[in-house]
């Protein structure tokens, strides 16, 4: 795309990542082309007219290339210096969407800018959060083994996440949990991961099993623990308190927190999706948010809620081992998969190139992620390393959630596939994320931040 070779910024830049980046963007354009392809139109012309999504994506890619070069030409100190301001700007923009925001698909997270393009501040905020987190952790006065630091870092992450939830962008909010990778790498106690994992398991169990049955199971387990360790309690009376409090938390989760999340925090359609993942039906009448806008629900109820996932699985499954061939996928040609050019772009790849294609593609991604981790580990500065792990986390979270939802392992949340899905904001965000990292990495020998 752009020849970096004879520039002086080429020194120290990791070309393997750039190559992977270019391949990925190209694959993305190809996938969007497959989705949009219409045999009745002359596609060679339409590539440059900016009327089709793939040609728009090409323009986005060119624009991103300029941004990438610009970032590589910048002084890497800028990122540390500006991280606070950028974060503040990001939060401001997100607040601004509540005023200026354009309503698309029921979520108000886009700010219209010139030329018919829209900006999604929540996307950009990921970069700023990564920077400010890196800045915070790398500060000499921060001791990241302390709870206070964890809480401050957590607050930095939670702020844009909460704003995203308020914009009805659950997917984007979930992405912020990806920073846990970076925090874990910098000393977050593994217990927190275990607790979070247990909580997730408990929530899933609550959905799968009848609440009363689950309560009994939990109580029985707690009881068994107490009987088993009865001798120890004589020595240490605290552990009985620990077990009882864990039991109380579990019980509370089952009885109050999970229903609260589904009925009060999540939208009706989100709860329905999650329930349908588990093969259950969710009664929207319980949902507080849906109570006010029943008319919307009726409209949404027309198509079965798992329609997307069903069609998506059909598309990927019908690819078989070798795929149906380039431009030959009937699911894609017939536009059976909704949102195929954005969130469900993986289906067009899976259908056209089969398991061979998806396996290769995932291999490429895995290689990309491992390469980023390698880059992260070779940083001398904490700032660069934290930032690098943030990038890894964000990429990994997007990839895992997006692909999981297309193959029916995760409820449908609007999360794009990095560098592949159609969309300027998304592509720009990931480009900036990667190239800031490359810029920092290029200077890894020079400065110790």
């Amino acid at each position, binding site marked *: 795309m752009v020849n970096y070779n004879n520039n002086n910024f080429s020194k120290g830049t990791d070309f393997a990542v750039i190559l992977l980046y270019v391949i990925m963007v190209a694959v993305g354009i190809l996938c969007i082309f497959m989705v949009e392809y219409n045999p009745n139109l002359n596609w060679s012309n339409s590539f440059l007219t900016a009327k089709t999504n793939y040609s728009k994506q090409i323009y986005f890619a060119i624009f991103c290339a300029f941004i990438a070069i610009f970032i590589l030409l910048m002084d890497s100190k800028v990122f540390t210096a500006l991280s606070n301001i950028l974060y503040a700007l990001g939060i401001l923009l997100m607040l601004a969407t509540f005023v200026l925001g354009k309503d698309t698909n029921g979520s108000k997270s886009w700010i219209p800018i010139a030329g018919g393009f829209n900006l999604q501040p929540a996307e950009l905020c990921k970069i700023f959060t990564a920077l400010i987190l890196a800045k915070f952790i790398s500060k000499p006065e921060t001791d990241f083994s302390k709870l206070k630091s964890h809480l401050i870092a957590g607050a930095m992450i939670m702020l844009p996440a909460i704003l995203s939830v308020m914009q009805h962008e659950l997917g984007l909010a979930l992405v912020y949990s990806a920073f846990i990778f970076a925090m874990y*790498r910098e000393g977050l106690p593994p217990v927190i991961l275990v607790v979070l994992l247990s909580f997730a398991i408990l929530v899933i169990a609550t959905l799968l099993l009848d609440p009363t049955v689950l309560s009994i199971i939990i109580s029985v387990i707690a009881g068994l623990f107490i009987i088993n360790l009865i001798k120890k309690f004589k020595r240490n009376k605290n552990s009985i308190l620990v077990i009882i409090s864990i039991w109380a938390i579990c019980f509370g989760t089952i009885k109050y927190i999970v229903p609260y999340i589904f009925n009060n925090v999540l939208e009706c359609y989100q709860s329905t999706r999650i329930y349908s993942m588990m093969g259950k039906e969710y009664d929207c009448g319980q949902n507080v948010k849906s109570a006010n806008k029943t008319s919307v629900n009726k409209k949404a109820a027309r198509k079965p809620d798992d329609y997307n996932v069903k069609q998506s699985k*059909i598309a990927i*499954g*019908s690819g078989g081992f070798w795929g149906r061939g380039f431009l030959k996928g*009937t699911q894609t040609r017939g536009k059976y998969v909704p949102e195929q050019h954005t969130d469900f772009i993986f289906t067009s790849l899976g259908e056209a190139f089969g398991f061979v294609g998806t*396996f290769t593609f995932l291999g490429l991604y895995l290689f990309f992620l*491992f390469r980023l981790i390698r880059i992260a580990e070779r940083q001398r500065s904490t700032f660069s390393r934290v930032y690098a*792990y943030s990038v890894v986390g964000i990429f990994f979270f997007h990839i895992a959630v997006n692909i*999981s939802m297309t193959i029916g392992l995760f409820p449908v949340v609007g999360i794009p596939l990095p560098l592949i899905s159609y969309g300027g904001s998304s592509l720009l965000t990931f480009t900036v994320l990667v190239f800031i990292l490359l810029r920092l990495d290029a200077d890894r020998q020079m400065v110790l931040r």
Partner: protein
Amino acid sequence: MSVYNQNRGGIIQIIIGIIFTILIAQLISLQIFSSKYKLAADNNAIYRKIIYPDRGIIYDRRKKALLENTISYDLVVIPNEAKGVDTNMLCQILKIDKAEYSKRIIEAIIKNTRVKASAFEPFLSAETYAQLNENLYRFPGFTLSERSIRSYPYNTAAHVLGYVAEVDVNFLQKHAAEGYEMGDYAGMTGLERFYEPILMGQRGVTRFLRDNKGKIQGAYEKGIYDTLAIAGRNIFTSMDVEVQQLAEKLLQHKIGSAVAINPKTGGVIAMASSPGYNPNLLTGNQRRKTIGRLLLDTARPIYNRAIKGQYPPGSTFKPLGALIALDEGLITPAYGYNCRGSYGACGDPRKCEHHNPGHAANLQLALAYSCNSYFLQVFRMAIDNPQYHNAKKGYLKWKEYVNAFGLGKKLGIDLPSENRASIPDTAQYNRDFGGAKYWNSCYMLTLGIGQDRMTATPLQLANAMAFLANEGFYYTPHFVDSIENEDEEDKVMLEKYRTKIEVTKIAKQYFDVIKEGMHDVTVIGTAAFIKVPGHEFCAKTGTAQNPHGKNHSLFVCFAPKDNPKIAVAVVVENAGYGATWAGPIAGLMMEKYLNDTLTTESKLKAENLSNVDLMPAAIKSWYVRNNKTEMLTPFEYNNDELADVWDMEMLSEIAPVKPVIDTSKKLDTLPVAPPSKPVPLRKVNKETALDPLQKKKKATAKKNGKL
């Protein structure tokens, strides 16, 4: 600190690796081990349009088309696109109400989903078609689709030709491997069924790619999987449409059947069953109105009596009985029996119509006068043949002969659901009389004059005449002489109709005697008043005992005597003497076939005969009682009942349909009587087994009409 946590980079890599492994595992399960997704994708996106070829035409021996194809239009709807329809106007044109409209739309969705086209109103009349065509823009989602339907220019041979109908679930299950789909049409009965693969041709399939809104995107894979429709091939039969029409006309207002066979080829010239129906009533929009009425009609107009009706042959069996005795050397043509008006050798005297001495002085005379005593005696001689030592063996030999003559077995005509009728097995007699040693020729004496448990279909009787006419062989009766562009497979199929079946090595002089005797029937005997201008012919009358009502009138014949070209069998139920009703019908059919035309006198006779009403009173009163129901639509009947009737028709090939020759008498007491077994058989219990002769006296006392 960073150094301290170095190993955590590895843990993160492991976590990423695990998640990716899970993703790949799911992809393996989706893409490699599940075949259902490919199927689901094809169901989504591939729209198969079936192009129906024209069905083949069926011609008679002079290449006149017995049936043709005409175009009819269906109103077809794609429920998903039927939005903003001017339902008021549509309902007005189709003369339905809005509830019916919604009902049909829902039916269409159930049958063929929302995105596929289903018939909304099939077989539009010309007027409705014009109205709809003019206003079609008001009915988005509705289209008019062309379809080829059958029409019958001669309104004849409905039973033989059969009909074409939309396949149902039952049919699809039975013919699962033949590629039929819901909404297809297939031959259901008659030649349409038997030659379905040939008449149907090959359906063409064009595959289109369809998008999520059901819109066609273009050919699927540039049409490489598409097949062209190949028109059905025509078939040429041996039928003569004019003889067929004449036979149907003569059988009007009667219950019965007539079959004419060309003995030289085995080709069926005419096959009529009465009451019949106009085949045009079972095509197009007439079908809905007609089918239920036909199925419920107590006279069973859909039932093809020519191949399914089982009648005791009565005296028409006599020539065959004599032939057996001649061939076994038990009698000579000169053998005579001194009949004095009854046969008393078995204790219970059987009446004979003739008293004058010498009417059975030899075989020829006995045939001409149809002497019962003579043929009862001949039958006993055959059963008690000293050569075989016991009656059972003698009977088996006799049965072997009769079966070889084509009675009591399926002939294998090219129509579905042929009945084998009955030549009783020894097992039946063993059961009834308490074992093989307890019976002898006296016990089934009247088999010799075509009664007892012997039954035959009109087709079998006509075929037996062809066998006599040919002096020892016959061809399996069939309709189809040749198929257009006959290929090897067709030749194999038609092979059996082109193979001569040599029955026995019976000497020619025996046939000559029989023929002379049957000729005498038409000169001095029971059929002397029936003439075929310009031709001498051989015939035998029969008046079959009927325990339920008036005797059946039977007549079998072939002509000309010396070079037979046509063999005919006619049965008229409950009509009385064979010579009175069946005889003239057969005579006129022969005249028509041999002379190509009828004399003025014959025409008059035919006209009179066709107006004679011999319908049993019970059936007539049923019609009167049910006059109102004639206008009922099939919907008002219980559909399950209809389905049962259908099944009976279809399954009759496997499980023999109960014959309904004589539902008539029972109808007096029961409005819709179940078909009863017609065989004129006395009830036999253990007492009769001990003392058969005494019991027989009572049972057969009334039986001795003119046979």
